[in-house]
């Protein structure tokens, strides 16, 4: 049976709630309505209002309350209705959640789920891919699954993790990606990248929805005799440097691909790690393919021009392969 990305996340959450009575959900419209994207549909019916809490429109209080509940031994899973609204909870995340363990040895085992990304004509405030802010905040873990299998395994790992995890779910994948996933309980380790496709000539380091763009391009250039290796980071923090460097040492050519805007995006970090630690292996410049430095525009032709896609990646792949 095929499982979609959204079903995979839902399954993961519900299984964890079944397994551990301390797991509970809070967020806007997650109960009666089942969430803006129906990720938590059925949770209220199954676990009741005690464990599935519809909150006021208060992102800061949602995250704050999650932190406080976690101090008391619970394992809260908070939903931001859109990743774009996570800015409203920013201080709670980067200053409260991220620093408690370091400062006074108080773990903050919370998950903040954030539906992110473009491609659904959501415009500037319903399309953001803002993981880089959090990846630059020590104390947070940052997870962005690209497949249904990983989505389920990672949400379960996130819920069991004893540190605050920002879990970015790509909205455009919710119902687009469907695949066979292992039955029942399994986790995918936070901090381990996956080789999404094994290749020889050039490495694409990417994550989230862009993994599928890379896969598309890999098919195309395979016919031209170029063998792409795709590293799906899955988590930005902790960063799986070893897997990335191993791939780079093998192929000697790298393109970093992400949907977030370029300047200050996480791509820079990836390039810097590679440039510092595998410099002698590089047979060409490390390139980035990203969205340009603009807000996410709404109108379809503008949004299409904004989002990285197969064509944009293809051009760079061919160029670098020929370098």
């Amino acid at each position, binding site marked *: 049976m095929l499982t979609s990305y959204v079903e995979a996340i839902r399954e993961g959450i519900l299984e964890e709630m079944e397994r551990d009575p301390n797991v509970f959900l809070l967020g*806007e*419209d997650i109960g*009666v*309505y089942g969430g*803006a994207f129906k990720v938590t549909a059925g949770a209220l019916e199954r676990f009741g209002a005690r464990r599935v809490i*519809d*909150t*006021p*429109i*208060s992102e*800061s*209080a949602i995250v704050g309350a999650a932190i406080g509940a976690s101090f008391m031994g619970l394992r809260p899973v908070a939903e931001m209705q*859109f990743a*774009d*609204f996570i*800015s*409203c909870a920013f201080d709670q995340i980067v200053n409260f959640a991220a620093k408690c363990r370091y400062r006074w040895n108080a773990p903050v085992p919370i998950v903040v789920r954030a539906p992110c990304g473009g491609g*659904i*004509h*959501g*415009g*500037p*405030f*319903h399309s953001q891919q803002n993981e880089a802010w959090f990846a630059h905040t020590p104390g947070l873990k940052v997870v962005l699954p690209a497949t249904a299998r990983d989505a389920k395994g990672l949400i379960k790992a996130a819920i069991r993790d004893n540190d605050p995890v920002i879990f970015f779910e790509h909205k455009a994948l919710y119902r687009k990606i469907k695949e066979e996933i292992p039955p029942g309980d399994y986790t995918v380790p936070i901090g381990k990248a996956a080789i999404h496709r094994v290749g020889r000539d050039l490495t694409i380091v990417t994550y989230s929805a862009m993994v599928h763009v890379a896969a598309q391009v890999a098919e195309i250039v395979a016919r031209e005799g170029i063998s792409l290796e795709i590293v799906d980071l899955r988590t930005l923090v902790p960063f799986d440097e070893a897997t990335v460097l191993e791939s780079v040492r093998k192929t000697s050519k790298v393109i970093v691909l992400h949907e977030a805007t370029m300047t200050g995006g996480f791509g820079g970090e990836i390039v810097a790690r590679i440039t510092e630690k595998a410099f002698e292996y590089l047979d060409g410049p490390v390139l980035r393919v990203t969205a*340009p*430095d*603009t*807000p996410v*525009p*709404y*109108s*379809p*032709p*503008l949004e*299409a*021009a*904004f989002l990285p896609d197969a064509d944009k990646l293809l051009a760079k792949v061919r160029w670098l392969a020929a370098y």
Partner: protein
Amino acid sequence: MPVAKPEPARKNAFQSTDAELSRKFLYYMALMREVEERIERRLYRQGKVLGGVYVGRGQEAIPVGSGLAARPDDIFFPSHRDLALYFIRGVTPKQVFAQYMGRRDGLTQGRDGNMHMGDLSKGLVAIISAMAASVPVAAGAAMALKYQGKDSVVFVYFGDGATSRGDWHEGINLATVQKAPLVLVCNNNQYAYSTPLDKQMACANVADRAPGYGMPAEIVDGNDVWAIYEAAKRAAAHARAGLGPYLIECKTFRMTGHSAHDPADYVPKDLFQKWSQRCPIQQLEKRMLDNSWASRQEIDALHQQIKQEVDQAIEQAEQSPYPDPSELLLRVYENEA
């Protein structure tokens, strides 16, 4: 070619007779209703409007009553169910349709969608999505008017749910401390998306919060455009007199889902039933007829005229081109064309 009926917009509401004013109310309320009907029930379903669609069906009295109580030099910060404010300020239905369809003639030229639009030259400030984020911004605009020695005031709009946001609190608190000329208009439609009022706040009324900011508040029937108009006049006079912010809570109901894709199954059916009896447009029409401010024929003709106007506007908007991908990088900063 009769595009809209421009007079109601132009003429100074302050000098109108009751009959004239009631016709203006009706015009803008019916125009808002018609434009939003087309967007929500046609263009969206036809796939011509993508992304989120939020309408103010059943709440039209709020932007219309308050918007017409404002002076032309007052500033509006509409929320997402206040479309009539745009028409009152001279934005055309064509521009609105073009906006929703992501075309060049929309107020944001395709860069943003739906109600996320503004035009400073018309005193219209675009919301961002984050609920209540406009409140501190409106507070600052009001502080600026005072700074400049003007006697204009700022009207800021928000829903019941938005009052839960920290920005709502911070913005009002700053505005009241600064005695900024700010009129706060709450549409309390009893739901925030699927969340009913009692899951949003533990007090009975948004107005119960006003004493905590040392400001006056009144609760009005949100489906009675005249009541809102009168309240807004009082509020604006208070603010204009240098007495600081004033809150109007309009009790109403959202006669639709949260957005076009939401069937609102969570709303008890009888609530829709009950509130449909209180349609602000029908109530206004009844009052107009009762007071002989207009005849049935005149009213029907107005609706007819609006339908035509709207048909035409859609046609024109559909001819508006999409923005060109080459525009993508422009105008992130100044001097980038």
